[in-house]
């Protein structure tokens, strides 16, 4: 019975993580999420591994039986959310191209000038552009 409940809890976590992955996530939030869900396990089992090398993830995997399931779903959600964020950032100026031509003529791209113009025009830009800016994490 206990195992059954645990299985259900794990399933609920996977489902909620799946739901979250549809959203985009900042790297700051991803870092906080991983620290919160995995921090104790990392300091206990992987204290010598540097997070930038990718060894921490494999270390956590090796100690799977002692690492809480929400750590793995947090890692997954962080990976999916930040990948979605980067994809959204890449796509945003394409989504806003027509709006930029209409509202930002003469604006010199670079130094976020175009973004500033689009944000200043946020009431009139297309829904796709506005949603793109939000998904990229650049909306006000």
């Amino acid at each position, binding site marked *: 019975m206990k195992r059954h409940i645990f299985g259900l809890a794990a399933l609920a976590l996977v489902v909620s993580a799946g739901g979250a992955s549809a959203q985009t996530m900042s*790297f700051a939030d991803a*870092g906080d999420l991983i620290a919160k869900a995995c921090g104790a396990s*990392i300091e206990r089992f992987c204290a010598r591994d540097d997070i930038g090398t990718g060894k921490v993830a494999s270390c956590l995997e090796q100690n799977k039986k002692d690492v809480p399931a929400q750590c793995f779903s947090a890692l997954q959600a962080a990976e999916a959310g930040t990948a979605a964020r980067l994809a959204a950032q890449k796509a945003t100026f394409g989504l806003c191209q027509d709006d930029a031509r209409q509202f930002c003529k003469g604006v010199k791209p670079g*130094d*976020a000038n175009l973004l500033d113009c689009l944000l200043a025009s946020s009431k009139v830009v297309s829904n796709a552009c506005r949603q793109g800016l939000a998904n990229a994490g650049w909306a006000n």
Partner: protein
Amino acid sequence: MTAFTRRAAGLALVAALTLGASFGSVERASAQTPMSSAEITKQLSEVTQFDPSLTAQVLQNMAQRAVQANQPLPLDQSEIAKRLSKLAQIDVQIQFALNSAVIRPQSYGALGSIADAMHHPILWNYRFLVVGNTDTTGTRAVNLALSQKRAEAIKEALVNLGKVDPARLDAVGLGQEALEVPSKPTDPINRRVEIFTIGTMQAMPKPLQ
């Protein structure tokens, strides 16, 4: 970044880089509140005047020569320091395990904020120098090596986890050779990581027609 605005002296957040000795839980909203990505973006985009001759290699050679000769490196009075101080910069709080370059989990969020800032359009086209510093506790040579490893660990994390283009980042450790407060050499305030905006990647695109 179009306006040439010199940073006010008080603008640079001087935050001690605490060497984690305790493994207890750390309150994020304590005295050391990490900067948000918006604050980082703002500060790193403040100055447009770059100094192309100021590279990681130049700084590293200077620090190594000073340690080998066992000579003080009066970086505060030096031309290099003056030039560094003109660049847009931030002091970041990254906590490392004691005597190691392993970044502690409570700093993952702060690292993420730096990555977010570097992905923002205002900083898209810019390159950065990550500089690690220690206080004078321990030996100079060890401090120099440790600070280099820590600066590299931050670059590695920004690249592999934060997905920042490695071509945009240089890392250098200056050990105890560039004290923040030379009158208090052992003060932990000297342990810090600085990030400088050092140049552009490519020419800015043309205006929309």
